[in-house]
């Protein structure tokens, strides 16, 4: 735990005299890393550039890195269409509600399963872990969700399945492991019940874990499109942002819906720049936020990788 904090700010080796081979390696390093890092953001620059490019230029000359015939028309149309804001509200609600509920359950479960004096800990741990070893598969899952639970076209079909995963519970257990058992014991000596010990003593110490796992959950909800594609049919017009993007990119009808009657014929619709503008709006918050939260993900990956 102490180690993970300075991972991304790790000092760069001892200051010993530098030989030719070191210079060569360093040179290769700078070149390769620079190229690779640029390759990682390059496709995003195309999306942004093209979203400000006029439709005629996209159709005749292709996508643009630097906008040509600069226009905000695509953004104006998406915003005026109104659907994207409803998607935003829905996605934010799903993310907040799902992350809060999921994180509470994962934290409670992770703590209880790490308690040495809990006789059922191994049994329950295996009960949860087994679900990642053997799955029923998509068809039985789909039939259960739609015919037994009747969740077709319900937002609960998106909210519920993403609440937790065996991997996140194991991750939480690994975080809890670093808290000495004496803390729990001292609580017991003071006469506190297990729930009191958890909320008053353990939770405050789990802040980094809560941040990490909460962010994994939130990212899952923000990027969700799969459950939506399974369970939200065309009857549902307001869908989570990424599934909305999927539909705008892949279905002409949804593209038209997203700008609600602001066109005369389909030929006049700036389809390509609309797709880009929708993508920028759906992804923007993540791209702006992730540099600040990436350290929590790095912490999670290193803690999680030690014991999967």
């Amino acid at each position, binding site marked *: 735990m102490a180690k993970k904090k300075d991972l991304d700010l790790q000092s760069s*080796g001892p200051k010993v005299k530098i030989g030719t*081979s070191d210079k060569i390696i360093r040179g290769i390093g700078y070149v390769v890393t620079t190229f690779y890092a640029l390759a990682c953001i390059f*496709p995003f620059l195309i999306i942004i550039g093209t979203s400000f490019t006029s439709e005629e230029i996209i159709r005749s000359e292709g*996508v643009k890195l630097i906008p040509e015939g600069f226009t905000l028309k695509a953004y104006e149309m998406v915003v005026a269409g109104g659907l994207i804001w409803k998607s935003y509200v829905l996605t934010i609600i799903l993310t907040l509600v799902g992350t809060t509920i999921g994180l509470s*359950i994962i934290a*409670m479960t992770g703590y209880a399963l790490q308690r040495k004096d809990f006789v059922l800990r191994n049994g329950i741990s295996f009960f949860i872990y087994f679900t990642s070893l053997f799955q029923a*598969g998509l068809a039985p899952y789909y039939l259960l969700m739609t015919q037994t639970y009747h969740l077709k076209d319900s937002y609960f079909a998106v909210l*519920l399945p993403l609440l937790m995963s065996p991997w996140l519970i194991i991750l939480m257990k690994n975080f809890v492991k670093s808290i000495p058992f004496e803390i729990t014991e001292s609580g017991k000596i003071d006469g506190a019940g297990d729930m009191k010990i958890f909320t008053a003593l353990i939770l405050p110490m789990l802040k980094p874990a809560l941040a990490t796992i909460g962010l994994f959950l939130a990212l899952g909800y923000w990027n969700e499109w799969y459950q939506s594609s399974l369970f939200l049919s065309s009857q549902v017009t307001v869908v989570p942002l990424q599934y909305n993007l999927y539909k705008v990119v892949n279905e002409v009808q949804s593209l038209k819906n997203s700008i609600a009657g602001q066109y005369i014929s389909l030929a006049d619709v700036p389809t390509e720049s609309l797709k880009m503008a929708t993508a920028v709006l759906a992804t923007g918050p993540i791209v702006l936020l992730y540099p600040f939260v990436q350290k929590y993900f790095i912490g999670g*990956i290193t803690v999680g990788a030690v014991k999967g």
Partner: protein
Amino acid sequence: MESKSVTKKGKVQTSQMTFGQKIWRNRTLLFMCLPAIVFFIAFSYAPLPGIWVAFVKYNYRDGIFGSKFVGMQNFEFLAQSGKLLQLTKNTILYNLAFIILGNLVAVVMAILLNEMQSKIFKKVSQTMMFLPYFISQVLVGLLVFNLLNYDTGFVNTILVKLGMEPWGPYSDKGVWPVLLVIIHLWQTTGYNSVVYFASICGIDEEIVEAARVDGANGWQKIWYIILPSLKPTVVILLLFALGGIVKGNFGLFYNVVGTNPLLYDTTDIIETYVYRATMTDFNFSTASAVGLYQSIIGFLMVMITNFIVKKIEPDYSLF
């Protein structure tokens, strides 16, 4: 109440308690696990009986358990048509490439990052490399389409400017194994290199210093110190990845390739086939047959790899 049981006397009593009494004493802890237990029963265990659909000729009116039992017929059909073999082959070959090249590139990037002297350069480049991990697979599909599509794609605009023939990968099934591997590496290297970077950071500085004093150059440092120290991590991660060798990356294939029958020969994996069988054809019996086949092989693979991990590094085994 429970506080008394912590005293010495209480501990002696613990061993004499019946199982029921022990559980009663743990009732709060059990209660804390209850929501998670309900969750996994509802979404992971409850679908299990539905696997029966793989052994019937499903029709909506009679339901899973009322439809006509056909035994192994659904599996036989898939096996005889060669579909199962083709899907398995595609899924495994893609995963092998993803695992081997993915770890290789991640190790190389981690080593190079570690060699960088400038902290700010290190931090900025790591942040840039991490970006593709944070975006949805839907966006990945659109990013790739922007680069590669025939009419407006970035690659073709360059080719045309250079006076060359435009390129149409969306109708050329031969190029996708290479393209999909590159896209996968692009999306996961930032993430995967974190683990290796962490291991390198954990190497004792004194060992490196001592090697320096003995005259080791940069290559020797990498070859004799860094790579051997990464070996256990690499082996463990490779083995665990092999446990998931029959599980495909559905989001990647579905969003990047989509439902394009021209490309199925080289891009159809188990997940994409099952998804189409379920959501497009409503052929639940066939879908479930493929799914069950995949679950059983997957289960065996995890068991085998875990057995091997246990042999070489018992601390890391899953169970």
